[in-house]
């Protein structure tokens, strides 16, 4: 087994991987940018290497810098997490050329599945159903307009190199295509250094259901049930659950077996996810493969009892899977909420800043995968994901009730988060019935319909607390401003920076 693993990532997923390393007796090593000098992943690691300025392009996206750290730190292996370099086949090649193990698939499999267009072709050849659309990258806006007219609106533009909703745009009408095409290419270029986009038929009220796979280097394949990830904003998942409210054992088997056929075709090893769209009649279509650990992996872990990160590491170390398909049993139901630093009331606008209070929930059936701590300044440069809050319970209704309880317990002050949004979603009849699709938020989230029920007593108490708080703090402020001048420039610097010295 490896002695040292370098984690080429940040935030909650870096912390998740650090924890797996600790439990396996492996020394976790991390990298950090300027904005992350005192990030949680740095605090929890054995070693931390500085890799540059805050923008990802100068730090976490720099394959060269990461490879240099791999060599300097004498790491045995690198775990890429998700995002950043996790689906960069050239990075895999550079790592392997340096004699270091990449915890993920082969560069070939990654390249094949990472190119959405080749992946479609491969899925077809594996006899898996696919969504109608372009078979090759769009050469021009003119071509996009032509293809869209052929398959009919609505259509979806997607980055060929993409994932995570970056470079994706839904286009409902012909006149919107030009603007969307430009933005999608610009985002794709910024996120993946590759502006190539393609186009697909947009399925009406589709559910996003994906199959989690594990495959070892010996050619053993298992599927670990599905995840329903239909609740999305900006084509990015915000709530995920396992199992899907619609999935019967038979549908699960059909999707699982199709997923394994696709993965086998690519000679894939590592954890991997085959994403499907399912229409209202429960027909399903191959969407894409994610050749890496998925953000929402905790719900699968909670329901199957299998630790996906540890399995990734064992597979990378050459160990065969220690279980077969018949050993995999789903128990109960798990739901994950992605706690983003976003103002859901204002179209999920990013809301970076300092976390002045952080009190996560605990107790039975709660799992918190966080990348932040109280006092941390959430940087403007990266994904707004602060933490993943997951619950498990014996049944879906109990899991929903539990999620309501834990969201009520969760206190974050200083920045806006998606917590109030989740509380609202949980009360909606469609969610409770499991009647989900990727248009759920657009259809059901009406933030401006503010809660207008007046509560005189709460108003009075809020006003009273404001007065008492003001009374305490106006004194404090006065005395502080008197004394600050006596303090050293060094101390002022600390104060100004907030974090760090």
């Amino acid at each position: 087994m490896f002695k040292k693993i370098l984690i080429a990532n940040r935030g909650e997923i870096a912390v998740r991987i650090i924890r797996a390393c600790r439990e396996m007796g492996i020394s976790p090593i991390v990298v950090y940018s300027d904005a992350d000098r005192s990030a949680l992943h740095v605090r929890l690691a054995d070693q931390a290497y500085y890799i540059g300025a805050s923008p990802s392009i100068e730090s976490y996206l720099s394959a060269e810098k990461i490879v240099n750290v791999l060599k300097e730190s004498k790491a045995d292996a690198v775990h890429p997490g998700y995002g950043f370099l996790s689906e960069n086949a050239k990075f895999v090649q550079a790592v392997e050329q340096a004699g270091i193990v990449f915890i993920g698939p082969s560069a070939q499999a990654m390249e094949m599945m990472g190119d959405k267009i080749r992946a479609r072709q491969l899925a077809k050849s594996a006899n898996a159903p696919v969504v109608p659309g372009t078979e090759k990258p769009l050469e021009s806006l003119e071509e996009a307009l032509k293809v869209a007219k052929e398959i009919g609106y609505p259509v979806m533009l997607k980055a060929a190199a993409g994932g995570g909703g970056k470079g994706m745009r839904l286009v409902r009408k012909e006149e919107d295509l030009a603007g969307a095409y430009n933005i999608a290419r610009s985002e794709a270029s910024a996120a993946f250094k590759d502006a190539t986009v393609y186009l697909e038929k947009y399925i009406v009220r589709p559910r996003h259901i994906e199959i989690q796979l594990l495959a070892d280097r010996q050619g053993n394949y298992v599927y670990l049930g599905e995840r329903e990830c239909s609740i999305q904003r900006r084509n990015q998942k915000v709530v995920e659950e396992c199992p899907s409210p619609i999935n019967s054992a038979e549908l699960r088997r059909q999707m699982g077996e199709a997923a394994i056929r696709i993965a086998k075709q690519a000679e894939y090893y590592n954890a991997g996810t085959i994403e499907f769209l399912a229409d209202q009649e429960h027909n399903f279509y191959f969407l894409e493969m994610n050749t890496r650990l998925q953000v929402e992996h905790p719900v699968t872990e909670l329901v199957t009892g299998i630790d996906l990160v540890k399995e990734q590491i064992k597979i990378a170390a050459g160990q065969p899977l220690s279980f077969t398909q018949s050993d995999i049993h789903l128990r109960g139901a798990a739901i994950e909420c992605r706690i983003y630093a976003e103002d859901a009331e204002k179209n999920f606008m990013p809301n970076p800043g300092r976390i002045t209070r952080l009190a996560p929930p605990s107790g039975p059936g709660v799992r918190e995968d966080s990348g932040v701590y109280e006092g941390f300044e959430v940087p403007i440069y990266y994904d707004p994901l602060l933490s993943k809050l997951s619950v498990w319970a014996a049944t879906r209704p109990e899991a929903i009730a539990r999620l309501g309880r834990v969201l009520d317990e969760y206190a974050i002050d200083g920045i806006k988060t998606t917590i109030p949004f989740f509380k609202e979603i949980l009360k909606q009849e469609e969610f409770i019935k499991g009647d989900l699709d990727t248009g759920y938020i657009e259809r059901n989230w009406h933030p401006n319909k503010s809660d207008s029920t007046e509560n005189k007593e709460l108003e009075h108490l809020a006003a009273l607390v404001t007065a008492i708080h003001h009374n305490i703090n106006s004194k404090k402020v006065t005395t502080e401003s008197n004394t600050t001048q006596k303090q050293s420039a060094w101390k002022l610097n600390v104060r100004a920076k907030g974090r760090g010295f």
Partner: protein
Amino acid sequence: MKLEIEIADKTLSIDWEENDSIVKATIDGNSYELTLMSPTSNVYTLLFNNNVYELSVETNPLNNTVKVADKVFTTKVVDRRQRGRKTDSATSGTQAISAPMPGRVVQVLKNVGDEVKSGEGVVVVEAMKMQNELGSPKNGHVTTIKVKAGQTVVAGEVLAIIE
């Protein structure tokens, strides 16, 4: 002690005294007697008629945000010393496009002098991997561009002015 607090479009006068953890208050003419603790800074736990209320207060430059249960109130202490409020200067023909959150300017889509329609994109700002095209608040033309691509901006910073 006495203070006036603005909350939910009202101004409430509060007159209160504290004795150990017991607070007696008259709020907008209503009498309250309650137990008040502060388990942690900026958090207040109130016991009133045996009901438990936990409130957190965030103080911003202009006002306070008070959270209690699922409600969020914006409150403000009325400053008696302030001589007559400044009214928002009627912006007549001039309107600014400002950054709704901290971020980086990715692209400036217009030049000074360009005509713009209401809603037409002027500046694209990126924060946390999300690009936001900020549109003109009105039909008019661009009189000032204050930023350039690559620049970091703070929340509320003026990016361009439309006349």
